């Protein structure tokens, strides 16, 4: 029996031989928790400056972070098996809600993103950020890996359905993030390289088609991205001002609370999507490097945790969650620094706002649950 265990779980011997500490009953990961706390602290520190030294913003955000950690701790207690069992149903509910958004949703600026329930509004696309990788991971992990063409196609359909629904809202940024979270599962599942290259080729060919289905404002964003100076006071304003903020920060920054671009309102959305420009302006390249190092450590720790997961379902889901987290970071900083077109992606755990914060924390909760429920096998 022990030998069987060793075959499945090479490290199990050490775990089984050690007496579990009280900490292991929390199912939390101390390293990850520490890194997340550091990141949140950094976020509040920057937010105080970015919000124009408004304690109200900082305390509201701190409250949301508290809520986020609460969700994290709760989800860490849910067993991965339970999540897996519920995955198909969650997926059906999620897609249903997305369809409902298109039919009954409310929103602003020509986009319908929210469902209004008595008392509160929520974005079903946020739920989908976790439900989609969960579903795809569940589907693939119950099949032999690497997945056969048939299963890849099914997985792609699972990915495509919510992606298309969200793109229709329209919310290009979120739909691409969700698609990415599903694709990461496929990539990590060991999908063959020839599929990957073929897909890249198809994607390249599909770009003109994508242009054709894009809304005018989305096209405008791409055009503005390509040449921000063409409309310096209109659509190009944001990107010119954010690049100016970043560039003028230099190596050491203008000092906390002393960024002129952000404090004098030249930088738009300085406390939400463009908050990295505040970091770059006030704390300089050094400050950005500290932040990026924190992110890199979180991703590294996340990948280690994923690879230590006891089964494919856990590995694929964890890996997708952590890589999607990176996509947030990359797309946000890339957008603010003018590398990528402007899409509404917040900087994870730093930008002001509750929705994405809670979703991200929930993801980290699932990550910890997967990592720390290995010992459940012994029962």
């Amino acid at each position, binding site marked *: 029996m022990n030998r069987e265990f060793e075959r499945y779980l090479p490290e199990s011997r050490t775990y089984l031989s050690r007496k579990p500490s009280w900490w292991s009953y929390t199912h939390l990961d101390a390293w990850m928790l520490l890194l997340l706390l550091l990141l949140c602290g950094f976020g509040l520190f920057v937010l105080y400056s970015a919000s124009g030294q408004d304690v109200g913003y900082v305390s509201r955000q701190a409250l949301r972070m508290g809520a986020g950690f609460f969700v994290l701790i709760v989800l860490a207690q849910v067993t991965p098996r339970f999540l897996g069992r519920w995955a198909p149903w969650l997926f059906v509910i999620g897609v249903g809600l997305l369809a409902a958004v298109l039919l009954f949703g409310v929103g602003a600026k020509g986009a319908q993103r929210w469902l209004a329930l008595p008392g509160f509004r929520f974005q079903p696309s946020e739920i989908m950020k976790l439900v989609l990788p969960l579903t795809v991971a569940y589907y693939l992990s119950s*099949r032999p890996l690497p997945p*056969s063409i048939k299963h890849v196609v099914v997985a792609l359909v699972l990915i495509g359905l919510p992606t298309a629904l969200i793109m229709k809202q329209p919310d290009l940024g979120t739909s691409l993030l969700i698609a990415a979270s599903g694709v990461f599962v496929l990539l990590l599942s060991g999908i063959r390289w020839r599929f990957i290259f073929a897909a890249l080729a198809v994607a390249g060919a599909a770009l003109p088609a994508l242009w054709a289905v894009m809304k005018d404002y989305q096209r405008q964003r791409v055009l503005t991205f390509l040449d921000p100076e063409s409309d310096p006071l209109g659509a190009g304003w944001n990107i010119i*001002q954010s690049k100016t903020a970043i*560039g003028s920060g230099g190596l050491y920054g203008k000092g906390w609370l002393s960024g*002129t671009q952000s404090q*004098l309102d030249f930088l738009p959305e300085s406390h939400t999507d463009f908050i990295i420009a505040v970091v770059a302006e006030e704390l300089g390249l050094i400050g*950005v490097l500290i932040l990026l190092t924190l992110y890199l450590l979180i991703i590294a720790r996340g990948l280690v945790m994923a690879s230590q997961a006891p089964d494919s379902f856990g590995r694929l889901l964890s890996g997708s969650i952590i890589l999607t987290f990176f996509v947030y970071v990359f797309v946000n*900083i*890339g957008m603010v620094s003018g590398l990528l077109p402007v899409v509404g992606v917040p900087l994870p755990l730093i930008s002001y706002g509750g929705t994405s914060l809670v979703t991200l924390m929930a993801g980290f909760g699932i990550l910890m649950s997967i990592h720390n429920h290995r010992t459940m096998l012994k029962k």
Partner: protein
Amino acid sequence: MSGHERLKDYSRESHTFKVRAVLAFGVVFLLMLVLVGRLYYLQVMQYDRYVAMSDDNRVQLQPVAPTRGLIYDRNGHLLADNRPSYSVTVLKEEAKHLEQTLVDLREIIPITDREIDRFKTRLKQRRRPFESVPLRFRLTDDEIARISVNYHRLPGVRVEAELIRYYPEGQSLVHALGYVGRINEQELQKVNANNYSATHYIGKLGVERFYEDELHGQVGFQKVETNARGRVMRVLERTDPVPGKDLVLHLDMRLQQITEYLLQDRRAAVVAIDTETGGILSLVSTPGYDPNLFVTGISTKDYNGLRESDDLPLFNRAIRGRYPPGSTIKPIIALSAIDTGVVSPNYTIFDPGWYTLTTGGRKYRDWKKYGHGKVDMNEAIAQSCDTWFYSVAHKMGVVPMSKYLGMFGFGQVTSVDLPEALAAILPSKEWKRSSRRVPWYTGDSLNLSIGQGFLVATPLQLATATAVIANRGRWVQPHMLKGYRTQTEEGIQLQAPDLEQIKAKPADVQLNNPKYWENIIKGMHDVVQGPTGTARRVGSDAPYEFAGKTGTAQVVGIKQDEEYDAEKLAEIHRDHALFVAFAPLKEPKIAIAVIVENGGGGSSTAAPIARKIMDAYLLGTDPRVQEVADGES
């Protein structure tokens, strides 16, 4: 089991995942390096460029307007003040929907279409971004309150205070001081645009215009940090503006007001000059108008009212009114005749009431129908005998008359700081040939000798010439400015201007025989205080000795042998009444010229006014008080 339904191989799956995870981390790391590279490019390689852009964004150089110098009269009475005035302005950058904002604003305070038009013109002429543009001036407290409570729905609208010119004496001084008005495009091109970058007003007329450079001062600058909406957050550094110099004029406000009172809003002008310095004590042209109307822009209705008035209030008669001087120039004509030796002062004629160049020819009439009888030069001046002058003019011709009149400032601008002053016309043979293309006739000389015909002069020129006579030939330049006033710890200091640097002084009148001055001055003295003088009723009771000369200038030509009856003529065809005088006789202090348009006779209308002004100046009397007292007794 078919080939594709393989069994799960757990350790292989674990291995594959680890390989892919390591690969993914590699990609993550590479992409992180891309971000770092991008940031390095922006923050290190392009640092200078973005710092400059950031500074351009936030730092603006704002000009600070200097305070315009004040203007005082000789006794320290304030004539031109700066007072805070509230205007409503619009900042285009903040007013997203300008038209709607204007509509909303008009519901709150009254704004005329003309003000909207002017606002739009100014909006186009805006000199820098984030410069607010005034829409309406002189808001009342009530209007300010109404705008303030509606601020929230009027984006970009502000109430701003600025110092604007205020003339406490209103219309009494407009022709002496001029006024300032809002600067326009052409004026902006003439001045140093930098120095005027914060200035909205410029001297348009008179002293305000002439001393614009001194009154304006030097612009200051402040470096300010503004936010993205152009609102000033703090001042980084500041160079204070240098306020304009305060001017002290020779003008005597009391005398000015008395003069104005005496003219009773008739179409008239008076210039009084301090004979020692040439300083202008009083410069009145009536009717006047309120210069305060022009400072922030006069309404069309008001302006048309002024422009279309028959009394021409906008016309500065004192320095631009070109009147035939009539008999007031006779002392100078007499002087030119005796000093060139054409006749002696004892030259006597018998005046039958007319003069002819040839026997039986055209009769040049004397103003006294049956003549003055036997007159010499002294009597000719005292009684203003035209025939004596016809005879003398006939003998000497135009050349000496033209020359001597020129030496007394006729036909030229001798005033220093009245930019609108006119030279009027001093006729001569050359002048007539070039401007009229006909030769000079002897008849023209006869007309010239009694101040009719081609010769026209301004009241200022008449007063100036009288001052030169009073000074026995010594020239003083008529001017307004007494000095620049500076407030120091020791008190108020006055720094006199260098007039001759502004304008060369005419040469003093050097007579071949200087004792002739007393001859003509005696004649003028007899005009007012002699037994036969034309204005003896005005001067006989004066407690001081003075000299004067009456004049009556024909408005319409009177035909040969035609009777002249002032009563029957319409008022506007009546003669202009003129009078020039200086006092006291021995050490003159004041020279004066009075002209009352259509006033009738010089001795009856103009001379009493001059006498009262001289009394007020020399004796300190006040006709306003006296007449009230007379009325009560």
